[in-house]
Each structure stands twice: as C-alpha cells, then as structure tokens.
C-alpha cells in the first residue's frame, strides 16, 4: 500500500470487483465489468451511495474491475476521466495509461467525464498533479482488467493462464493460436475476483504502445467542427438566462435596487438577489442582483437598466498604486524569517560589492476565453449542475452550502472548460446558478460577461520582492537576503490573513536551489482587498521573476556570463534537503513525497545545459536591440530552463522571435500534449510579463475587457517556441504550469541584454525601453 502524503488519500493497490458487492447499485448491463482502482479514502469507498441514481458508463459495464474502467460485451472499453479538461489534454492522457496496460484497441475506447464524486479520489484539476497522482491507479486499472480477461480466457479454454497473453483487445492462446476478443470475455471475466496488486503484472516500458507516444486530444475533431460542448453550451429545457450585477467593490452590500426599467426589457422575466458572502470568502458567491429572462441578450440588456445603490464598505479605500508603495515599504523592512542558513547580517556588515533590487508585479486576471458559466437545475431539494469547473467536488460543497442541502444532493457534470488556469477551481458561479434556479423554480444559466470576469476574479496576487546580496572576490554571493510581501491565498479562506502560506513560500521563495553559506528568506504581511486565488504557476511567477532577474543582475555585477553564473550558483549535482534551513515553515514539495520527488540540482543543471545548446547561447553578441535571457526553475516537481530571445526596435517595441523551453518532467505520458503546454506557457509568460495588469481605484477594478486587460495576441506572442523534452527515468511530474515561471525573468534578462535597461516592475510594457 502506498500513501500519497499530504493529500489524505490512499493510492491503494487492492482492487475489488464491485459487481459482487452490489456496491454500485447493479445498474450495469448484466455481466458488465468495472475495475475499482481505489485512490480515495477508505471510508468514502465504503459508503454506499444510496442517494445516487446516476451511474457512470463504467459502473454499468460488464467487466468493471475499477471505478475508472469498464468493458462491455460488445468490446467497448469505457474509461472515466475524473479530472477536468481545460486544454492540458488530461481527458485523453489519463485514459491512455489504462488503455495501454489493458492492451486495448484505442478505437474501441470511449472516454467518459466523471461527475463530481469523492469515490474517484481528488478531482481538483489543479497543481499540475493529475498524472503524478493517478498514473499508478490508471495503470493498475488497465492491468487488472487485462489479468482478469486472460484468466477468463484460460478458464474457458481449460489451459494454463501462462499459455495465454493479451494482444490488442483479445486474448491469444499461444500453443493453439485460439483467440477470444475482450468483449466476448467481459461477462466471464466480470465474475472473477479482482486480483491483488501483487498478482497483477504491469507492462515493462518496452511493451508500452501508448504511454510515451504522441496522442491528439480525444475531442480534437469535435473542437475543429464546433461540436465540442463547453459550459457555455449547456442548455436545459425551459431554462432562464441570468446576468448578475456584482458588488463593484469586494464586500459591498446592496442598499437599494430599482429594477423597474430592467423589467421593461422584452424577454426579461424577473430579478433576484444573491446574498453577499459571509467571511471568510471561500468560494461563495460575492452577492449581487441578477436579471433573469429568455435569452442572454435580454438579460444583458436588462442588467444595463438596473439601478443598484451599494454600500461600498471598507475595501473602497483600495488604490493599487498606493498599495504598491505599501508592499515595497514592507519588503524594505525586516520581516518574518522563513528560511535561514549562516548569518547574512554578519556577512553584510563586512561590506563588499553589494547588489540590491526590488521587484514588483501587479494583480492579474485569468481571463480564460470562456468566462465563468454554469447551468443549474434545482428541483425537489436537489440540484444538478452543468459547468466548466476544475473541481466538481468543491462545486458540490459550495453549492450545498449556498442552498443548505446535502452534498450528496448536488450532482455536478463537468463540461469541457474553455480555459481555466486556476479560476475555475473556484465554483462561485455554479453556486450563483443554483441559488437562482431555486429562486426562479426553473433551470438557470448564469453567464458572466468578460467585464464580470475581469472585475470579480480570484486574482493572481500582486507582489513585491526584495533581494540583496554581497559578492565575494570571485563574484559569488557570500550572503543573500530575499524578502517578499503579497496578499496571500490564505485571505480567501481566513478573513484577514496576511502572511504567505507554506504553499506560496514553497513556490520559488524558500526553495531556491543555490549553494549559499549565508542565506535568509523573509515574508511580510499584506492585506487583501480583492479576492486572491491561484493562477497558472501561482506564486512561482512573481518569486521567480524576482530571483531569476536578480541572478542575472548578480552575474552582470560579477562580470560573468549569465548562464555559466547560474550553473555555478546551482553548484554541484546533489539532492537538496531544505528542511534544516526552514524556520517556522514546512516545505510542501507540491504535495509530493520528498523521497520520490526530491529537489535534485543535477536535473536543473541538465535542462539549463540543454537550453544553452539548443538556443545557441553565447554565439552572438548581445546589444543594439538584440539579446537573449535565461532562467531556470523547478516547480510542480518539474525542471525547466527557458531562453528567451528579443528584438527591441527603435520605438522600444519588443518582439520575441524565439523561445527555447527545456523540461524534465520525468516520464511524460503524452509528449504531444506536453509540448503544447510548454509552448502555451511561453506565450502566456511573455504576455503577462509584457502586458498584464489589473489595477484598482476606489476599490473598483479598472480593467473592463481585452482592450485594457491585454493578453498575448499573435502579433505580440513569441514567434516560435521550441520545446525540448528531456527524458529521464523519474516518475511523472507537472506539465501544465512549470513552463511559465522561468519565461518571465528570461524575458526581462533578454531585454536587459538587448537594451541595457533593467525592468523590475511588471508589466514591462509600461517601461520606456528606448
């Protein structure tokens, strides 16, 4: 038995034939087979889902040795993806693993999207951990089914199991060359006991047919044909549409409403209030006034004619420009120590060449192309949701709390997500739809406008980070101080929280892998005046923008090549144990066990070296508007080095002709999808560094749409992103997020190389470069 530490989950090798226990209600077609590979707390697995009438196709299959996998007598293999598809390919990549171990014919595999259900284990598609945490379970699901099919065939033929092998959707008896298809065997196999993990032989690497091969997305043809179903496309008979006027300032409360003009708009049926949240925020709706009616257009028009008088509350004092100064003042004062080795103060007192710099990054919005959207159908004190959510179980919890009903009475269907980037793990919009459906007595679809999306996000936090180092005679830092301040994610879960969580400190602040005799890291307090959430790569983005830029500043102060200097700073290849250096903090390691996923400087060095080779680093002299920048960082247990090349023209306009992304994520199940993620990460990184900013005045977010919240477009994105996958025998680690952080300092460093201008405030676009 293996324990996934820190997750409260058990990845259990033992698989049970759930058909026999009648555990799943027995609605599967007679003689179906479902394999219940268990990655969930035992107590949840043991709960009979009495209230549940909705069974997955897997649960209805003839052979079902796992909750993730079932086989029907016609040979169709159903595989549940319990994680949300927002563009990473996970809906395809997890099933590949089970299908490979099953030795399935991929054309006979049907993928089913799992509803929110604790029996699937963790469904929060977040933290780049779907493969890391479910690789073993999906392998076991496929291999257990294969083992049972082989046993069933051997029994049918009356031959030893050892003479039978699985070969692409059938079992073959070697000596007689008899064959039986998986479909023909499913019913008999479904009657066998599920083997223990020890009885199941997993394929060896050279037997893999799918794992490690390029797979296009399962939904690819539907997407290009316009047939793929996103949350925006969900529809229920008799449904009303709703557009919600949210509080203009976080925490504002309705004083009075005049909906007379709104109700005159043809197609508008009614208005309804949504209660303001009660602290802490959690994922509750912020509150507001909804206009409901017959079409999206009607309710958007009605909303424009709605007059709401708000009591704005204390956050109306929030000014992002003044707040920036506060953050910077905070990092210029001593703060809470979270990592310490040696004595930086003593070393600084000795004097020497000192370098110090303060970096700032603004709030950012996720701005997925599909804004938050959900359909809810409340009836008989139960509710069914169709929504593009990253976390259907949190959606169950949030909706249940909003309606005062049981979690089991909330069914959440996950559609495809039109982007997520962390925003859609907060299901406030689904709770809004549920509350409105209950009030209206009809199914309701809540559609956020782009303006709503930008103004009422759970923002990527704004941060200031200060670095100071003193260099020894060889140019290496003999002491290094790092200090951060930013409104923490904790503020969403604990009203008034002001200090970073271990989770945030562990993302690029306390985990710098440099060999330093004297190193101190501090975190200062900051109040949140807007909802703070997590955005692709989270705190790594601002921490690594600062540290990755500072390393470049040190290299230049030392008169050294940036890449060579970075390699020296990382030092010799070794496994780094942070624990003895952490003060009052713990290193969470992205929720992964440190023995399986240690911090290994050899891997970081290697991706850097490859990036140097692939980019042609050092072959062309920088300056005159051309330059390259480099950075490297381990996040989500994956090692990434980025080299960004820039051209800055005489008007100061920045063009990025090429980015080189090198990653070591251990075993990569679907290299095609990984490549796409690292390409996209480079585009997003360049976009947010050049253009991204959410600002506030009087507590109101000032950005309204893509005219003033700029994101990368084709003419501002990197022209070419070359991705290099480094294959190692390490277990699989994150793919979706780790490509972003090093891009940001690599870009700033490239701009310095090209122009001599050091940009320490994002977005870079606000600084005149020439």
């Amino acid at each position, binding site marked *: 038995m293996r324990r996934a530490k820190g997750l409260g989950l058990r990845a259990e090798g033992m698989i049970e034939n759930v058909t026999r226990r009648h555990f799943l209600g027995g609605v599967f077609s007679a003689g179906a087979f479902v394999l219940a590979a268990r990655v969930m707390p035992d107590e949840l697995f043991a709960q009979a889902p009495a209230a549940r009438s909705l069974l997955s196709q897997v649960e209805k299959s003839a052979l079902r040795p796992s909750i993730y996998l079932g086989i029907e007598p016609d040979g169709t293999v159903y595989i549940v993806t319990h994680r949300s598809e927002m563009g990473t390919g996970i809906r395809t990549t997890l099933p590949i693993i089970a299908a490979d171990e099953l030795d399935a014919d991929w054309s006979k595999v049907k993928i089913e999207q799992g509803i929110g259900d604790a029996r699937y284990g963790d469904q929060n598609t977040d933290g780049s951990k779907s493969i890391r945490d479910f690789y073993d379970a999906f392998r076991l699901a496929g291999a257990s089914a294969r083992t049972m099919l082989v046993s069933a065939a051997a029994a049918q033929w009356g031959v030893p199991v050892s003479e039978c092998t699985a070969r692409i959707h059938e079992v073959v008896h070697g000596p007689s060359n008899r064959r039986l298809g998986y479909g023909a065997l499913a019913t008999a196999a479904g009657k066998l006991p599920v083997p223990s993990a020890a009885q199941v032989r997993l394929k060896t690497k050279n037997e893999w047919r799918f794992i490690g091969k390029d797979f296009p997305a399962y939904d690819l043809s539907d997407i290009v044909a316009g047939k793929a179903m996103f949350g925006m496309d969900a529809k229920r008979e008799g449904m009303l549409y709703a557009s919600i006027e949210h509080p203009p300032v976080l925490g504002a409360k309705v004083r009075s409403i005049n909906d007379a003009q709104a109700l005159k708009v043809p197609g508008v049926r009614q208005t309804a209030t949504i209660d303001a949240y009660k602290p802490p925020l959690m994922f509750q709706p912020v509150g507001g006034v909804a206009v409901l009616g017959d079409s999206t257009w009607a309710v958007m028009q009605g909303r424009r004619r709605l007059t709401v008088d708000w009591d704005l509350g204390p956050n109306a004092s929030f000014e992002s420009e003044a707040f920036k100064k506060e953050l910077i003042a905070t990092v210029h004062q001593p703060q809470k120590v979270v990592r310490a080795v040696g004595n930086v103060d003593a070393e600084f007192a000795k004097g020497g060449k000192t370098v110090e710099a303060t970096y700032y990054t603004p709030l950012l919005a996720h701005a997925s*192309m599909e804004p938050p959207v959900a359909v809810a159908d409340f009836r008989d004190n139960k509710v069914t949701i169709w929504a593009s959510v990253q976390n259907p179980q949190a959606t169950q919890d949030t909706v249940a709390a909003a309606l005062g009903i049981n979690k089991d009475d909330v069914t959440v269907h996950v559609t495809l997500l039109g982007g997520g980037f962390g925003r859609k793990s907060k299901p406030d919009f689904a709770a809004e739809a549920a509350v409105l459906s209950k009030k209206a007595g009809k199914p309701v679809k809540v559609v956020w406008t782009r303006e709503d999306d930008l103004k009422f996000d759970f923002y990527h936090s704004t941060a200031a980070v200060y670095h100071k180092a003193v260099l020894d005679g060889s140019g290496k830092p003999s002491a290094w101080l790092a200090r951060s301040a930013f409104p923490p994610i904790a503020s969403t879960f604990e009203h008034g929280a002001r200090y970073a969580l271990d989770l945030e400190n562990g993302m690029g602040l306390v985990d710098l892998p440099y060999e330093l005799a004297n190193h101190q890291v501090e975190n200062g307090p900051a109040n949140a005046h807007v909802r703070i959430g997590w955005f692709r790569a989270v705190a790594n983005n601002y921490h690594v923008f600062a540290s990755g830029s500072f390393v470049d500043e040190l290299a230049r102060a030392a008169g050294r090549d940036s890449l060579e200097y970075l390699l020296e700073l990382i030092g010799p290849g070794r496994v780094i144990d942070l624990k003895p250096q952490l003060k009052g903090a713990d290193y969470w390691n992205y929720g992964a066990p440190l023995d399986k996923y240690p911090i290994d400087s050899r891997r970081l060095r290697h991706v850097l070296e490859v990036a140097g080779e692939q980019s042609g680093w050092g072959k062309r002299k920088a300056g005159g508007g051309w330059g390259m920048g480099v950075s490297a960082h381990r996040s989500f247990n994956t090692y990434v080095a980025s080299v960004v090349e820039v051209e800055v023209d005489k008007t100061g306009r920045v063009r990025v002709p090429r980015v080189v992304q090198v990653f070591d994520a251990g075993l990569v199940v679907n290299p095609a999808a990984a490549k796409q993620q690292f390409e996209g990460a480079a585009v997003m990184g360049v976009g947010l560094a050049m253009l991204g900013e959410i600002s506030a005045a009087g507590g109101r977010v000032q950005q309204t749409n893509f005219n003033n919240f700029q994101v990368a477009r084709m003419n501002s994105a990197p022209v070419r992103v070359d991705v290099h996958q480094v294959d190692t025998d390490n277990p699989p680690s994150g793919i979706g997020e780790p490509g972003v952080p090093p891009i940001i300092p690599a870009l700033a460093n490239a701009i310095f190389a090209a122009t001599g201008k050091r940009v320490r405030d994002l977005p870079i676009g606000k600084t005149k470069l020439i």
Partner: protein
Amino acid sequence: MPITLTVNGSPRSFDGDPEMPLLWYLRDELGLTGTKYGCGAGLCGSCTVHRDGNAVRSCQTPMKALAGGQIITIEGLSPDGSHPVQQAWMKANVPQCGYCQAGQIMQAVAFLRTTPKPSDQQIDTAMSGNICRCGTYQRIREAMKSVADGGRA
C-alpha cells in the same frame, strides 16, 4: 417586418429585437453553439462567422443589419470537419482548450480565400484580432501555411 437571412444555407426569418447581435441569435435561438462568446465587444474574435463570405464578429453584428445576408458558422463550414482548414488544424494539433478555435478557423478561412499565399506578416495582421489564451498561435500559423502551400491533411 421580419428580417430574412440564410444561416448555413437554410432560410431563416427573425422578428425579435433588431438590436440583438447575431451571436445570440445563433447560440440561443438556433442552438448553433460552435460560435462562442468571448468578450461581447469585438475584441477577441471568438464569435467570428462569415457574412457573405467575409469574416465578421457576430457579437458586433446586430440582426437589423443582416437582411438578405448569408451567414456561415463553423457548423456550416463543412458537414464533417473536412474543410481543408479544419483538416490542417487537426494535423497541426492546434487546439488546447479549443474554445476560441471556431473563431480562429472562420477568420483563417475567410482570410485565406482572399489571400491564398500569405506572408507571415500578413497572417499575423489577419489573425491578431483573435485571442487564444492557451497560446496556440504558432500552430495556427503553421496550419494556415500548410493550407496556403496546398497541403491537405
């Protein structure tokens, strides 16, 4: 007076709010949900369709302006995703989340019709009104160039 138009070849008659953008007529009334809402302000291109062969932003095109118009949406581009641009999109494995891709494809198809052999610069100019938050731009360019080069999937 109802407004008459054709959508994907079928004659249609509309007598609702003449100010309503085509986007919502397509999505809410006709159930053609392949065309997506992204910004409602003509800033992102997710809602791009063809009007008389030209790419237009359906969120900025009121119904009253469509009398006699011939509208083609992603659903009408080909019955089965077999249009060369759709095929090129699949071959280049362009989409990530896929939400913006119908708009990207409609924009690309209209552009390639008038500019069959575009330069990179022309592609950038033509496509920069279409945002992809996943960042698939280089594959979009690759797919468009493969069509321009006569490449069929």
